[in-house]
């Protein structure tokens, strides 16, 4: 899973497969981070009445 | 309130997030992985330096050399010794499982004295001192009353120094009732004795023969010296030799042979005589040998000509004339042919006529005591003891009948390296006979059926804990190996040889006078004299001088009639018991390398190799030809009852094309009631169903099966 696991080899299949996986994980992670971060901002800093409801 | 809940929620979420980011989950995951890789209840064998101890296997009469791998005093694996004259590295299922016997749950750990009903399994542990005193006391009393003959012994074998010690004890004590468990050796011995006046065994030189005509011998199924014979089979195969197997069932030997000839069971002798007839009629026999080394040839020739004409033999055996003729031509035409008898593993005696008919074939082609033929190996003593040891060997097949009928009163019975309650045929009678013997002393290492039903157990060391000479059965050139202690005794057991010495000493003069030795080991060393050095250093003796002493070649002529004035009485066709209408089928036993059927019960590893067409759960499967099964309305896996005049048992059906219609085949060696849960209760003991069938010519048990009925259950 990580480059320091001994079964890790820097070959095409690892790059493609793990690349895809980490790509997906990063998108999910960043997306959630954005949502939570934005929510914190909206709720505790901006404190504005939600303008969309 | 609202804020409190919210902060509680945030605290919870924050806390979880914090824990997730800490090393704790990783550590837990790592720990869990380590834990599941070695659960505390999964054994971790301790490491150590590997050493090897050479010894010999005594689990069957094969006499293989074994090398045991040890780690820190633990025996971990048994292997065959490469270069050993008997097995050359090969080893069988039973031999490989030896450590399961050594460390197994059925070992008897102390001397035991029965306290409850016999067979109820209630024992009290007693000291060796008490146990030996008790036996000595009992024997002393009997001797005082002049009842020495009422003491008997059933021994698994009669070769080697331990049986010699028993025999010596019996002779000093005044009983002639030292008996070995019946086997085909009895009929070999009787045949040799009657045909050439020698006390000798037959040994077939399979590996050097080029044409083997086997009358039902399971050459690769544990016959003779099992591993040696399997090797011999490979040698014959490689050299381009031929093996013809004659038996009603496609055994492994038949399957591996060049030709399998199914025969009506029990008519093997007739086929041999028919072949002899053809050989004589066509003058294909070895005239030189017949003239100079045999007697009563003409009488024999006239007899087979009149009674065993080829047409007649076809009728009796169910084998086509052409086949018989072809067999005769091939047999007589081969360079080194040998005719072989002793059904299956040779666990039953068989008729004298059968051995004589087969030996007649060997005599006709002149290969008695020749390479690739059959050897008469005299029952020599490869060791010497001061004073004489009378040969007290008796045929044991009548023992139970005589005890049961009251012809013989047995006051004490020793049981050594045998399990008669299981392995003698007609188990019910054997049980009745044993019930009449007031004091049974077992020397068994394992809680087998006989030990369970004895009054006193003097547990022997297992072969891996003791010294003993091991005589490889049925080899033309005898090989004597030394079984040496591989591990120290695991329990409070004693060498049976030492126990006999102690009993003798306890009894005092005059019995004790014949036993000058302090221990079995010193006795063993003395018995081997000059040979001890070689035996103990090399691990085995294959001295040509030993071999030559064993052979008395051509000094005695082979008598075709075995001393019978009326040859016909030698070849009386035997009718097995049971009403043919009530019991339309025949039940025959078969042997397998994977099922030990002698003194030793099958260890767990061996049971594991038994196929599911033989044993399924606790059910035994019997082999039936599909034609027979169809007629009886039976399908594969159906439950059925096998019934004979001696008993009945529940079985399951396995359809097998390789068995003659009208027969039911059942493996020997299952149906134990004793031993551990890995063996007990599995299958049926065929001895419960088969009785003995006395050969009127010899008194031997000639049973090859029994009439039976198979009823759908």
């Amino acid at each position, binding site marked *: 899973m990580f480059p320091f696991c001994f079964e890790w080899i820097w070959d095409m299949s690892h790059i493609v497969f793990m690349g895809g996986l980490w790509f997906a994980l990063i998108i999910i992670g960043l997306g959630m981070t954005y949502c939570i971060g934005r929510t914190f901002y909206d709720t505790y800093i901006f404190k504005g009445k939600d303008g969309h409801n | 309130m609202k804020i409190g809940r919210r902060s509680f929620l945030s605290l919870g979420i924050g806390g979880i997030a914090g824990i997730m980011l800490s090393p704790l989950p990783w550590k837990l995951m790592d720990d869990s992985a380590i834990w599941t890789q070695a659960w505390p209840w999964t054994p971790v064998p301790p490491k150590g330096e590997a050493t090897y101890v050479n010894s010999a296997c005594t689990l069957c009469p094969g006499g293989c050399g074994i090398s045991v791998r040890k780690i820190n005093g633990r025996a971990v694996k048994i292997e065959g010794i490469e270069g050993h004259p008997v097995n050359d590295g090969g080893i069988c299922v039973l031999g490989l499982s030896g*450590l399961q016997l050594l460390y197994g749950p059925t070992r008897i750990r102390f001397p035991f004295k029965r306290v409850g009903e016999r067979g109820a399994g209630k024992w009290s542990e007693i000291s060796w001192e008490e146990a030996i005193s008790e036996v000595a006391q009992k024997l002393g009393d009997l001797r005082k009353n002049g009842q020495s003959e009422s003491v008997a012994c059933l021994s698994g074998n009669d070769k080697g120094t331990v049986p010699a010690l028993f025999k010596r004890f019996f002779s000093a004590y005044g009983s002639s009732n030292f008996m070995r468990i019946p086997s085909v050796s009895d009929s070999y011995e009787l045949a040799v004795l009657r045909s050439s006046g020698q006390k000798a065994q037959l040994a077939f030189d399979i590996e050097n023969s080029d044409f083997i005509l086997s009358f039902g011998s399971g050459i690769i199924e544990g016959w003779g010296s099992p591993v040696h014979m*399997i090797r011999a089979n*490979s040698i014959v195969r490689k050299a381009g030799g031929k093996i013809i197997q004659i038996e009603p069932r496609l055994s492994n030997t038949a399957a591996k042979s060049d030709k399998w000839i*199914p025969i009506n069971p029990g008519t093997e002798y007739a086929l041999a005589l028919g072949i002899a007839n053809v050989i004589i009629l066509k003058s294909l026999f070895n005239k030189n040998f017949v003239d100079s080394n045999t007697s009563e040839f003409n009488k024999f020739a006239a007899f087979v000509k009149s009674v065993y004409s080829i047409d007649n033999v076809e009728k009796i055996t169910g084998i086509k004339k052409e086949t018989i003729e072809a067999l005769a031509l091939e047999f007589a035409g081969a360079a080194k042919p040998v005719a072989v008898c002793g059904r299956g593993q040779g666990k039953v005696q068989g008729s004298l006529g059968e051995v004589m008919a087969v030996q007649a074939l060997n005599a006709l082609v002149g290969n008695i005591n020749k390479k690739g033929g059959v050897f008469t190996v005299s029952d020599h003593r490869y060791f010497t003891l001061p004073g004489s040891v009378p040969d007290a060997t008796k045929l044991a097949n009548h023992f139970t009948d005589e005890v049961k009928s009251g012809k013989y009163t047995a006051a004490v019975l020793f049981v050594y390296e045998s399990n008669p309650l299981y392995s003698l045929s007609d188990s019910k009678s054997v049980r009745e006979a044993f019930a009449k013997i007031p004091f049974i002393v077992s020397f068994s290492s394992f809680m087998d059926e006989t030990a369970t039903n004895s009054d006193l157990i003097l547990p022997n060391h297992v072969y891996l804990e003791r010294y003993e000479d091991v005589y490889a059965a049925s080899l033309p050139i005898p090989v004597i190996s030394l079984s040496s202690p591989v591990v120290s005794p695991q329990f409070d057991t004693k060498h049976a040889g030492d126990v006999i010495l102690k009993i003798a000493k306890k009894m005092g003069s005059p019995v004790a006078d014949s036993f000058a030795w302090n221990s079995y080991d010193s006795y063993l060393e003395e018995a081997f004299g000059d040979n001890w050095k070689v035996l103990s250093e090399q691990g085995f003796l294959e001295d040509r001088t030993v071999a030559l002493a064993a052979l008395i070649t051509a000094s005695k002529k082979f008598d075709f009639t075995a001393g019978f004035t009326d040859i016909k009485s030698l070849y009386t066709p035997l009718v097995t018991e049971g009403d043919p209408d009530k019991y339309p089928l025949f039940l025959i036993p078969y042997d397998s390398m994977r099922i030990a059927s002698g003194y030793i019960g099958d260890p767990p590893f061996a049971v594991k190799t038994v196929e599911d067409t033989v044993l399924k759960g606790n059910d035994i499967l019997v082999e039936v030809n599909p034609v027979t099964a169809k007629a009886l309305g039976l399908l594969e896996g159906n439950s059925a009852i096998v019934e004979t005049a001696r008993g009945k048992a529940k079985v399951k059906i396995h359809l097998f094309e390789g068995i*003659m219609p009208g027969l039911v085949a059942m493996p020997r060696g299952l149906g134990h009631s004793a031993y551990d849960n890995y063996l007990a209760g599995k299958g049926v003991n065929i001895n419960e169903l088969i009785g003995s069938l006395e050969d009127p010519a010899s008194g031997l048990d000639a049973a090859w099966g029994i009439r039976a009925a198979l009823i759908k259950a």
Partner: protein
Amino acid sequence: MKEEKSDKSAKKFGMVIDLDKCTGCGSCMVACMAENNVPFKEDESKKLVSITWMRVYRLTNGKSFPDTEICYLPKPCQHCGGKGEHGHSPCVSVCPATATDYNKETGIVSQIYTRCFGCRYCMAACPYHARYFNWWDPVWPKGMEEYLSPNVSVRMRGVVEKCSFCFHRYQLAKDKAYYEGRSDIGENEYQTACAQACPAGAITFGDLNDSGHAVYELKKNKNAFRLLERLQTNPKIYYLSSRQWIRRAGDNYLKNEK
């Protein structure tokens, strides 16, 4: 250059089993169990849940009495090289946790018990049914653990195991050779437990690439065949039989095929 050299020294251990010699005695099975700490249960008659790394099959020619023939066929793990001998054996390529691996140096398919988490995908992939699952915890009767060998770890419940060509024996032989200053081991120094025990001498084990080893010539015998060669699994177990029906039983053929 370096590649070429390592390629040359690459071994390919394999077996040639002479079915004409095999008597079906079962020694190979027990030798294997004893060598490799294979557990046993009270009832071992359910063969589909019975662990026997080496299993002897009983083949019949399907003909009726008296033309019936039977033949025994010992079947260990076939240590497949996979298509083109690249080491993509059916099982190795599917194991999700790299718990089974193809050793390029020896051609042996290994099984790492502590790595396996028991998904059994390898068992589904193996057409030879050479892989066995530990459905139960191994239990030895009290005292019998004494005979367990430290050279092969005892497997716990829930993992897959299979024949390893007694790989620990290879390691021991290599170690010994190393201490004695030798770079290579002899044919006799590394033999599997089954080959060693076989009373009939039916099993020959060695390096299929080494012309000095007995298996090298034996595998070229005209009677030699492998199981399911058409699947391109490239097994390393060769069988010899002089009987045509047995050789044909080694693979599947279409009805109209000769």
